[in-house]
């Protein structure tokens, strides 16, 4: 399979980049640790410029506070109830909770960045590490309280933005097709059409065969949904900046969709292959569980692959940016920016590649499920 090679080379590349990064870090930290005292006078300048340049909040905001890259990076990778815009400005997002008492909806601005508790209709809530927790009568967090968090978080909001953009783009393109019947594509249409034809002729047709038409809407939607969210994730400022496709929940849903589509459309040969494989009967106790695990493991791999690739990209970019704050010097900034630029270009490739791989493997699994054996 071609994509295996792509995956292997991709993984190798990421390993190489990581290794370089670690080597780079370990060398530089030593040198800068020795020169620490000399660096101190520029401290305040760095803090100011750092805020101006990237708007990263966290430790740098308070000047002398210790900068913890892991915390900052994890904060950026993870979901949030606020959408950070710039400096100290954040967009509060609605919190929707399903509690024992019922549905509770309020703005996340009520938490004042986690500094205040919010007294709701049924419970008192506290924002701890960007998770909404119920506060018990004793003023401590009640871990037993069952609260389902259906909030419109940063990722949900970013996903909605991407969906709106996708809808606008594709409905306008579809309009162009209706308006210019039988004519050559033009503008956005001519940019989108090759991708659609690529998905049809190079992903769907070779893998699924003549029944491909039925699965085209799912494959195209998957492809462009992942692609747009990947690209939006690369934009560092609002309305991008959320790690949507690098969130396990989203990749879980996408993989679940693939699993459902594959198994609903599986024909008798597909099920025969699982429950009555062409092996001696005494191997059945091994083969059937293996095949059943295969049903789960294929979409599971899809889920992990997309999640890990996108998250890894974000972590690398953020690590490189964090270098400036770790060393507390502007001198490292050109190096960081150069590396970030390189990584962003690589991530742009990865954005396309992961959308392609996800769609390709989905088509492959569908093809395996609907294949006719004569």
């Amino acid at each position, binding site marked *: 399979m071609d994509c295996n090679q792509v995956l292997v080379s991709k993984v190798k590349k990421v390993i190489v980049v990581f290794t370089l990064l670690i080597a780079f870090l370990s060398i530089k930290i030593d040198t800068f640790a020795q020169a620490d005292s000399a660096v101190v006078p520029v401290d305040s300048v760095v803090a100011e410029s750092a805020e101006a340049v990237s708007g990263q909040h966290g430790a740098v905001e308070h000047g002398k506070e210790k900068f913890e890259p892991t915390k900052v990076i994890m904060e950026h990778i993870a979901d949030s109830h606020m959408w950070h815009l710039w400096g100290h400005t954040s967009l509060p997002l609605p919190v*929707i909770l399903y509690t024992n008492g019922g549905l509770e909806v309020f703005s996340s601005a009520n938490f004042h960045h986690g500094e205040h508790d919010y007294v709701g209709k049924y419970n008192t809530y506290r924002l701890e590490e960007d998770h909404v927790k119920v506060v018990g009568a004793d003023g401590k967090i009640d871990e037993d309280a069952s609260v*389902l*968090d259906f909030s419109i978080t940063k990722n*949900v909001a970013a996903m909605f933005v991407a969906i709106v953009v996708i*809808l606008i783009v594709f409905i306008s393109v579809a309009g162009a*097709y209706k308006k210019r019947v039988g004519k050559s594509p033009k503008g956005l249409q001519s940019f989108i059409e090759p991708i659609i034809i690529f998905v049809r002729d190079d992903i769907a047709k070779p893998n699924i065969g003549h029944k491909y038409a039925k699965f085209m*809407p799912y494959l195209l*939607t998957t492809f462009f949904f992942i692609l747009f969210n990947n690209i939006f994730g690369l934009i560092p400022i609002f309305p991008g900046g959320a790690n949507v496709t690098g969130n396990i*929940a*989203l990749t879980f849903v996408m993989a679940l969709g693939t699993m459902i589509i594959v198994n609903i459309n599986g024909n008798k040969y597909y099920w025969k292959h699982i429950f009555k494989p062409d092996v001696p009967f005494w191997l059945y106790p091994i083969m059937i569980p293996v095949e059943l695990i295969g049903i789960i493991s294929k979409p599971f791999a899809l889920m992990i692959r997309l999640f890990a690739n996108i998250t890894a990209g974000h972590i690398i970019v953020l690590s490189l940016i964090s270098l400036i704050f770790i060393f507390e010097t502007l001198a490292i900034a050109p190096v960081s920016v150069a590396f970030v630029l390189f990584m962003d270009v690589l991530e742009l490739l990865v954005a396309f590649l992961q959308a392609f791989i996800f769609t390709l493997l989905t088509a492959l699994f569908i093809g395996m499920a609907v294949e006719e054996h004569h």
Partner: protein
Amino acid sequence: MDLVTPSIGLVFWTSLAFICLLILLRKFAWKPILGAIHEREQSIDEALNKAELAKQEMARLTSQNQDLMQQARAERDEILKEAKTLKDGILNEAKKQAQVEGAKLIEKAKIEIENQKKAALAEVKDQVSTLSLEIAERVLRTQLDDKTKQEALVANLLKDVELN
């Protein structure tokens, strides 16, 4: 662990949003786009096929034209040849006829000449006989007058006759 634990909220919203997106795009985007692309591809295929057919038709017509041209040329040659033979025939005929006509004319002229000659001879004979009669008359008359003179006359007459 937080990173790899799917949160229920995001799972819910993603599922909802993705299904909505799928339904909306399927109805408003993929159907018209794929339909239009398919139609366009078909029309292009059709146009190409038609062009191919037209090309074949063209080639067929060209070869047909060539055949016709060749045929026409051969026919023209045939006609020319025929015309030439005809012309030659006519010429020969005319020549022959002219010869015959000429021969006839000559024959006629000959006959005429012969006739004239005969007539002239007959006239001459007439005159000769008339003259002979006159001579005889005169001789007879002179004989009656003088013998010598008669002889001289006869001699004279004879001389005349010989001249004739």
